[in-house]
């Protein structure tokens, strides 16, 4: 039986190849090409916190790869060809030089997987003026507000969007009194700011706030330390801001009072999660795993969406022209399927991708924000993050 199956599979593969060849030949004359560059820099391997999660070097790029295949499957029927060229700058290399040198006039669309301090360095280059950049890595609200750029679209939900998603859930659960625990990094402080903003917006109360100091005192263990650290006035929920995951995992089950943990650990807010299966998500999870041999990470999802957004705009406009695609992506007609129920679109005031946010525990999808009941005159998705009247981004599209 197995050998027959194998034979059948082989025959299918053969048929498939023949078909591919014939399809590409059929359109050989009439192809419109859409060139997309993917720019990233190698990352230093961070110290491992746990052996459970190995460091993933290729986060992002594999998502872009899956999307280019999807685009080209559609492209077969529309006479469009999508090309993805990857530029991976070495650890000691310079992204600005790489951008100037390698991503010449050929690539009007650039998927950028770079840290927050690098994105605008690239976006402000003269070479980037006639391009559209898709930021698939940052979550900074500043980059979407006062530091926003007209040639950058942000795919991942910002810190404010995540904090609002968490706050909506806590409000629904009536976890009104928060104990905010903040890590020592600048990123943690930024997420704490977003949480404070969310608490204010949704009428929640931060009853206690503490910074987690990393010490090397051998007498202090996670077991004893957290119990002592969390002896504060009564609260409903511990909200943690620890983006690098340096201590947050130690909080759950160790607090002095029995309280849930939410934030960057415990129940987390994310654009994508392996427990997500609704709205056809199980299909893309399977396709990604088959292609990559691992689960789809948030950065993979973001890169997937960036390349799919270009594909969707090119298919609908039947064009590869930068300005036409740019206009279409910001228009009301643009609706990107992102396996999260609602169609995704870009906010016209800051280039942020509008999207539902998943609230997930390690092995369970708990809720999807916006939580039912949080209303908005235009779209409930804009209850998350900086809405048009609050935005300080000033660029004319």
């Amino acid at each position, binding site marked *: 039986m197995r050998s027959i199956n194998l034979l059948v599979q082989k025959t*299918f593969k053969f048929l498939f190849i023949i078909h591919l060849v014939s399809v590409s030949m059929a359109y050989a004359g009439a192809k419109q090409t859409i060139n997309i560059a993917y720019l990233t820099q190698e990352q230093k391997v961070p110290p491992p916190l746990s052996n459970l999660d190995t460091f993933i070097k290729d986060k992002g790029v594999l998502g872009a790869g899956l999307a280019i295949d999807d685009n080209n499957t559609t492209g077969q029927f529309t006479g469009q060809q999508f090309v993805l060229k990857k530029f991976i700058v070495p650890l000691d290399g310079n992204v600005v030089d790489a951008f100037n040198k390698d991503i010449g006039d050929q690539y009007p669309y650039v998927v950028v997987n770079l840290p927050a301090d690098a994105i605008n360095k690239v976006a402000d280059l003269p070479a980037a003026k006639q391009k559209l950049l898709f930021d698939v890595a940052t979550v900074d609200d500043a980059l979407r507000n006062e530091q926003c750029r007209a040639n950058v679209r942000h795919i991942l939900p910002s810190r404010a969007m995540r904090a609002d998603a968490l706050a909506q859930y806590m409000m629904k659960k009536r976890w009104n009194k928060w104990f905010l625990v903040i890590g020592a990094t600048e990123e943690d402080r930024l997420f704490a700011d977003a949480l404070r903003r969310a608490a204010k917006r949704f009428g929640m109360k931060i009853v206690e706030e503490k910074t987690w100091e990393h010490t090397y005192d051998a007498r202090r263990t996670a077991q004893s330390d957290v119990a002592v650290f969390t002896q504060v006035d009564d609260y409903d929920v511990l909200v943690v801001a620890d983006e690098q995951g340096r201590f947050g995992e130690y909080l759950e089950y160790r607090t002095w009072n029995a309280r849930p943990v939410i934030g960057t650990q415990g129940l987390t807010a994310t654009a994508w999660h392996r427990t997500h299966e609704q709205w056809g998500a199980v299909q893309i999870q399977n396709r990604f795993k088959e292609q990559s041999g691992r689960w789809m990470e948030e950065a993979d999802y973001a890169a997937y969406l960036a390349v799919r957004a270009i594909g969707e705009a090119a298919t609908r406009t039947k064009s590869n022209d930068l300005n036409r695609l740019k206009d279409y992506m910001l228009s009301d007609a643009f609706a990107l399927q992102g396996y999260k129920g*609602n169609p995704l679109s870009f906010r016209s005031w800051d280039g942020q991708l509008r999207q539902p946010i998943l609230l997930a525990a390690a092995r369970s999808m708990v809720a999807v924000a916006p939580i039912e009941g949080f209303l908005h005159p235009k779209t409930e998705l804009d209850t998350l993050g900086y809405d048009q009247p609050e935005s300080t981004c000033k660029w004319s599209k």
Partner: protein
Amino acid sequence: MKKNVLGLLLTVLLTGAAQAETVFVTLEKDNALAVVDPIIGKLINTVEIGQRPRGIAISPDNKFLYVATSDDNTIKIIDADTLKEVGRLPSGKDPETFALNPAGDRLYVSNEDDRLVTVIDIAKKKVIKQIKVGVEPEGIAASPNNLWVVSASETTNMVHWVDVKTQTIVENTLVDPRPRALSFTADSQQLWVTSEMAGTLMILDVKTKQIVKTIKFDVQGVTADKIQPVGVVIDKDRKRGYVALGPANRVAVINAQTFEVEKYLLVGQRVWNLAFSPDQKRLYTTNGTSNDISLIDLETQTVTKSVGVGTYPWGVAVKP
């Protein structure tokens, strides 16, 4: 005990004399098939069928059921009377939806992960052809005049028109995002396609293969993102069409002449697939998360009963 059986038999016989029909429902999470008598409104049997059963269809002579048991990677042929498995079809991986041609000798299967439509010769239990389509093909329908098979790809957002004679795609129509299900009118002149994400129903003219009308559903008190149209059926006189609206828990009643939405009928939760009774006087819906089916009387346009069937009812087929 004997008396009871006799009594039941008598009831079945009596009611059966007037209008006997059997509704078969696949239960995705019970690995089973529910058998319902819609006239008395009761679940009469539940039989094990295979892993994760979803798509279901009945042969034109009503002798066989075809059931996609997704996790067994096959489509099972089930004797519609004994409910015993009599054969398996080589459906490819993870079959979900499929369509029978009018003659009942060909089966067209969507292979979602492989971007293929597999054409199966039912008598020979053999794959005749695989047709490459867009990303994540799902809904599929064969035209009653046997000229077209149309496959919808959810991520490519297209319907692909396969010419039955040549078994090749001759045209593609771009449609609203995440097209889910599609159905031809009995005269084969129109193709109705639902879009899960846009919350719309599109009417395509088969001659031009273009969209001639888009209907946007709007249910009072239900947010737009909950309106996710899936299953669609049209009556044989093309008077009315019916669309299952998923988590909006409604079936939309559409005037198939004017394309007005006449009514929204409240059914069970996450209504997904629909099937007519043989005389088209009733409509049966599978309600995925309330674990029941709704029985709709089409003359009065009212939901008359819901019948609990099991976990995650998915597909539905009716035997006269």
